[in-house]
Structures are given as C-alpha cells and as structure tokens.
C-alpha cells in the first residue's frame, strides 16, 4: 500500500508524517499523534464524536483521509483551549452540566465552536441544526443547547 508524505498543522504544531492511503484523519490523530480526545464512535460519519476543524470547517475525521490533510490546519478538542484559559464553550458546557459520560463532548465542542464562529448569535433552532450530526446517548441535549446559548452570550459581552 502506498504511503504519502504530508505536512499538517495540528493544534498549531507542524507535523511531518508518512501516512498509508487507508489511514483516516481520525486514526492519524489518535494513533500517530496520541490525541485521543477525538473519539471513534460509528466510523460512518453519523455520530460526530470524531468531529475536528479542518481549515476552520468541522468534518467527521473518520471520513477524511490523512493523506488529504497535506497542507491543512487541524484543530482538535485538545487545541480549543488557550494556554491558561478554556474556550468559552468549554466553560459553558461545564457550567451547564452538559457532560455525562463525555464521549460525545469533544465533537459537540468542536461543532459548537464552528457554529459560533460562523454565527455568533444562533437561535435555538440553528443550534439544533448545527448539532444534528453529534449524537449524545446520555440524552443531555437540553443542557448542551443551554451551554451553546451561554457561550454565545459570554462572547457577545466580551466584544
């Protein structure tokens, strides 16, 4: 099987890697770079647990080949927080109690961050639509939605 030389920026670190054709971005993150915050749920692009930002847009990392990431900028849940401070959406989800088992949380955080980046003041329906691809089996949706609203509010106050 062919290997591909790639240079990819992950959480602001430049990585030079040789990846096999069939390696997904998710496996590269978890197995090569040991960034296990990104979860493997369904491997079919349905559950959203593996969601990461690729060039600013959320993607299911189980549905992207590592070889396609040459030159790309990836942000995983590990890269959301700054050095000393959590991202407002991380703070908000803690405050709202939007985490139970935590398996869906990394993907939820990334999708929510992407939503707030493109729409700083989303309605409840817009939040629900943006999180359609992030399944939570602890049924914590109500508090997740609360958290996104709260994060939007906090960010608005900061501006």
């Amino acid at each position, binding site marked *: 099987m*062919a290997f*591909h030389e790639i240079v990819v920026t992950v959480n602001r670190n430049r990585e030079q890697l040789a990846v096999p*054709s069939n390696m997904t971005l998710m496996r590269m993150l978890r197995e090569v770079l040991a960034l296990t915050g990104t979860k493997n749920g369904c491997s079919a*692009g349905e559950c*959203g647990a593996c969601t990461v930002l690729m060039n600013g847009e959320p993607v*299911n990392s189980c549905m992207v080949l590592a070889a396609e990431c040459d030159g790309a900028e990836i942000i995983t849940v590990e890269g959301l927080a700054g050095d000393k401070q959590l991202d407002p959406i991380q703070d908000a989800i803690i405050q709202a109690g939007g985490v139970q088992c935590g398996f869906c949380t990394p993907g939820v955080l990334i999708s929510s961050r992407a939503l707030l980046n493109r729409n700083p003041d989303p309605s409840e329906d817009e939040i629900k639509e943006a999180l359609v*691809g992030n399944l939570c089996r602890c049924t914590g949706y109500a508090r997740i939605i609360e958290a996104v609203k709260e994060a939007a509010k906090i960010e608005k106050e900061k501006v």
Partner: protein
Amino acid sequence: MVTNTHPTLPEFDLIRPVTLAEASEFLSQHTSNARPFLGGTDIFVRMRDGYIKPQFLVDIKHLDGTNEMNFDPQKGLVIGAAVSMNRVIYSQDVGENYPLLVEACRSVASYQLRSRATIVGNICNASPAGDTIGACMALNGMLHIHGLQGSRLEPVDGFFLGPGKTTLKAGDIVTGISFPLPPQGCAGTYLKLGRNKLGDLSLVGVTVLGNNDTRKQSEFHFRIILTSVAPIPLRAKDAETYLSTHEVNYETIRQAACIASEMSTPIDDVRGSARYRKSMVKYLTETAITAVWKKLQK
C-alpha cells in the same frame, strides 16, 4: 455477515492524477478495481461494510475546475464536482437564484458531513434516495463529463439506470454540473420524510418546481420528482401532464398526487414498508404541489 463495530478502511492506494486525461486513462485501465473519489461520504461507508473493495481510489478533487463555482446572470450556474454542499448552501448567488438547490443540500445529513459531501458525488452514487437529485433534475441540471473521447454534457434526467448504476462508461469522470437560469418566477420545494426530523436518509422524497406558463392549458407548469420510491429517481411525468392540462385546484392537485403515487414502485426495507411509502408519496406530493402553487399565486 460478521459485524465489526469499528471497521477500519480496507487497504487501497490513493491515486492523485495531475490532469483529467491522466485520471480518465487510469480509470479506464482499472475498470474493475478503481473508483473516482470526491468527499468519500458514501464510498467509505460501503468499503468499511465490505460491499466494495476497490484497489485504487482516484482523487479528482484537485483537477481542472472541479473546485470552482460560478454564477453568470445570463447563462446560469456551474458547480464543480469537488465543491462541498456547504459551499453551495452558503453561496449568495445560489441562495438568490436556486433556493431549491439550497433546500435540498441542507436536508443532507449533518453540517460536518456536508463539509465533505458534494452534489456531483450524490448524483454519481446513484442512490434512489439521493437528496439533491430531485432538485438537480427539476432545475434541468447537465453533467459535465470528461471521458477518453473528450468532454460531453449529459442531462441528470436520464443519467440513472438502476441503484448505483449510471450511463458513465470506463474512464468517465463527472467534473461538474451546470444549471440554466431557472424559469422566471418559479417556486419549488423538497419534502423529505425521514425516521426523524433532521439528518436521516429519506424514506420518501418529493421535489416540486413550478412556474406560470401561458403555453400550458392550465397556465402552470410543474416538475415533480420522486426519490426513494423506485429503483431510480422518478420523474412523475403523467402527474405533470395532468396538471398542465387541467385547471389547477385542490381537487386536481389531489388527483395529480394519486397519479404520482401510482407511478412509484417502492420496496419494503428496514426504514419503511412499500405500502407506507406509497401512501406517503401521495400525501407529500399533494402537500408539495399545494405549497408551490400557493407561492406562485402570490
């Protein structure tokens, strides 16, 4: 079949040709074991489930023009094969001139899947349930195909031969899709029945595009496309003709919906029974035509 809950992708070689000619040639030389590859949202699932085992995936996302989207107020819209559905949804030109296309794209899965999914991929996958196919047929979409003998155009209506089967020949690559300007003052809608409100595959899909047309006896022209209810996306031509030749009112709309339902040949599967689908075709077609008709009267 043994179900592996976390199947990894089977081995294959990713090929990245530099030109379309090179890609066509490679695909034609490996007809049984190479496939073109865009967003991967369908092909990866089928590979993981063991339905297909290509030895080569040929990435066509960087080839001539596949990444471009252009709207010309005189000629219409061209969407490259590699343009993601989200790019289509957030394009102002598309939103203003082809809202039906936006509505169809928006109904597909989730935001993060639409970052990768493409309209051309949705069409080439040739699933009878493809969500964007109805809109592409209703808007007279033309596929731009690059083959061994050069380039050609083919209408989306007529492209499908069966589930997963199209008119594409060895070495053919769909590089984009174009749409003429939509009929003046047209209105459309895509009604999708899934098991839940958002994000699911369709059990029944009904696309209706209508416009005022004085050449028709009824002065209305409706295009009606049914998806998920036949081996290929189905244009309900008999229902369209009925509404062109009869005065449009609640009664004739109901009759047209019955004709559409009779034309559908759904199957029983895990998502729903044929009987249920057939009756939902009737209900959704009636609802869709009524909604479009009301928009046209405004």
